[in-house]
């Protein structure tokens, strides 16, 4: 039994997603450990983002079960929840492959919107705060404290009052992670967080993800193409190819799995040795 199977925060069982006649994800099952960084990798079109969209509720899976377990033991069956409930109740946060910030609003406002659920309740669903009763002021102060903390961690404090759309690309990526973290999640799903980052920014991202796992004890599930990031920081790697799961193990195990190498080289498995020696593996 692997370490992530002992106390999984997320358990995906027999997940299948069909779009008409196309089976994008075919019977995929894996677990993500509570304190692990789990990477979901695979060649383009392998169905990684589809799995993500099923987990975060943007797609309703055709078959399968997705269970999220809170530390207290309460379970959430994500395939039955609406997308906004998955964040608000099951506490799963996500970022997007093509960054989706509120571009016309400032950096701080982006982080405040992320805390909408808490703030809205504190404002007495608007009515209380409009009449000046209830603890909205205190709640807003707390929200700013949390936002300030994540601004500091992502190095965006000096840009807090800038419009988010005006930030450079790397900052936008980090802001999206900060925004997701401001929802106080238990599982953070990152869709290609290192895409388009230069080597130095990528290094900074690794640091950030490490601290999120170490300090916050939050599980991270990430899709990534940058193998240097994947191999360095992942505790657990799941490999998809053509919608099927072809490997599941530690980074080291996966790296030496002939089926994974075959998938990435795009050749049948028995030719891996030959092609591998040709390309110098």
């Amino acid at each position, binding site marked *: 039994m692997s370490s992530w199977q002992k106390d999984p925060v997320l358990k995906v069982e027999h997940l299948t997603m069909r779009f008409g006649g196309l089976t994008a994800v075919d019977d995929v099952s894996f677990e993500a450990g509570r304190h692990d960084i789990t990477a979901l990798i695979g060649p383009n079109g392998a169905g990684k983002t589809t799995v993500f969209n099923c987990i975060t509720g943007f797609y309703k899976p055709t078959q399968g079960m997705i269970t999220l377990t809170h530390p207290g033991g309460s379970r959430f069956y994500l395939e039955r929840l609406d997308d906004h*409930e998955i964040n608000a109740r099951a506490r799963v946060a996500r970022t997007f492959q093509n960054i989706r*910030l509120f571009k016309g609003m400032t950096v701080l406002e982006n982080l405040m919107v992320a805390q909408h659920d808490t703030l809205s309740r504190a404002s007495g669903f608007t009515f209380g705060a409009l009449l000046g009763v209830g603890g909205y002021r205190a709640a807003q102060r707390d929200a700013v404290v949390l936002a300030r903390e994540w601004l500091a961690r992502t190095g965006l404090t000096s840009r807090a009052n800038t419009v988010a759309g005006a930030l450079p690309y790397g900052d936008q990526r980090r802001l999206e992670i900060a925004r997701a973290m401001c929802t106080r999640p238990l599982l953070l799903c990152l869709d290609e967080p290192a895409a388009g980052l230069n080597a130095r920014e990528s290094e900074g991202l690794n640091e950030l993800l490490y601290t999120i796992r170490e300090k916050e004890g939050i599980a991270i599930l990430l899709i990534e193409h940058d193998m240097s990031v994947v191999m360095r920081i992942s505790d657990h790697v799941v490999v998809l190819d053509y919608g099927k799961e072809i490997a599941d193990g530690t980074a080291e195990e996966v790296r030496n799995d002939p089926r994974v190498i075959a998938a990435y080289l795009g050749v049948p498995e028995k030719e891996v040795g030959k092609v591998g020696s040709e390309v110098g593996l």
Partner: protein
Amino acid sequence: MAERGQSFSHRLKPALVNAGLSALVALALFCLVLGIRTVDTVQGLTLKPRPLLLATAVGIVFVGRLLLELFWWHRSWHLPKPTGLKGLRAAASQYGGVVLIIAAVLFPIVALALEKSLHLGLPLRYLFDLSIVVLTYVMLASGLNIVVGLAGLLDLGYVAFYAVGAYSFALLATNFGWGFWMCLPLAGLAAALWGCAVGLPVLRLRGDYLAIVTLAFAEIVRIVLLNWTDVTNGPNGISGIPDPTLFGLPFTPRGDVTFSSFFGIKYDPLQGIVFLYYVILTLALITMAVTLRLRRLPVGRAWEAMREDEIACRSLGINTTLTKLSAFATGAMFGGFAGSFFATRQGFISPESFTFIESATILAIVVLGGLGSQLGVALASIVLIGGFEALRHTQGLKVIFGPDFDPALYRMLLFGLAMVVIMLWRPRGIISSRTPSILLEAEGGAAPANQRRA
């Protein structure tokens, strides 16, 4: 201007040629449109040439083009930018709102005082009536601004809420004899409920589809009002809607205790109008204040976030259906308030007052003013409603276009022209800047942005 490149005399020749060409084009265009008029005489239809008018039009084109060529287009990017303008604009957006509010509060007092002391012969009644109409539109546009400007939901049927408010008030007041102040919140509530009822099925749609369905719902409301004769009295409308009172004191000379007799002053019909002016001013200011406050509350931020990216909103745990519905209902409620004010002011309402053109006018005010901007909406209402009313009384144009020229007939044409011009110069509306709802201060807690965004 002549110091750069060519001298003035060098530029004169090509400018003259270009102006001449433009004049030729204008002549070709206008010779049939303006140059000839069909007149119905005893002999039948005859053509009456109007050479003077044609010459004026062509002359305007010639001189205009010449001046543009010589002085305007030639002024190139080398000219230093006027530095004061930016500061002026910032100051305008910061204090413009306060100045406007003070002006609006003082306007009747100053006008009355001027009239009483100097006997200028101001058309006071007309001025107040016009200001009341402008303020009604300010209020309507502020309500729509929540839906379109903040939440980004294009609503082409806003007039439906206006109608629901007006009819709820009229029916409650005439059937149960309730007063204005009691019916006002009820009318707002009715409109908000209608907003929810329409919103629930409709808000799954986005963009153009939403716009079309809201347009259809507004037509449904109007047609129901027109045909449900038992309740709404159909096209004949509802009359005898009571005027608002000041703590039970009516402004009309009927009855025992009236406003004038209670305070022991002489009755003047203007008193009632000035009162109405202050009622709608208060309502409009409340609408704006509430909108300003809502913007800084979670719900307002969620509205703006939804306008920016709905999917991201859902990924952050925001229930977008409820958020949209709240925007729709809030906007509808203010529309309902405005509607009940309209009903009480007119004393008579019929479905004719709630046609699509009203929705279009309100939307035009919001778009021209600048989506989400309160000050912009106020300015656009003044310009569009007040400005076109003023046009009705402009005599100057008659000198050029003849004595039977009625500028009011060209209102829609000018309306369109104003739209095009503003969209060219300021594509995001008169006031296009957005004030953040919260600012991070250097140390200590962050204060909610207290920069005014009126």
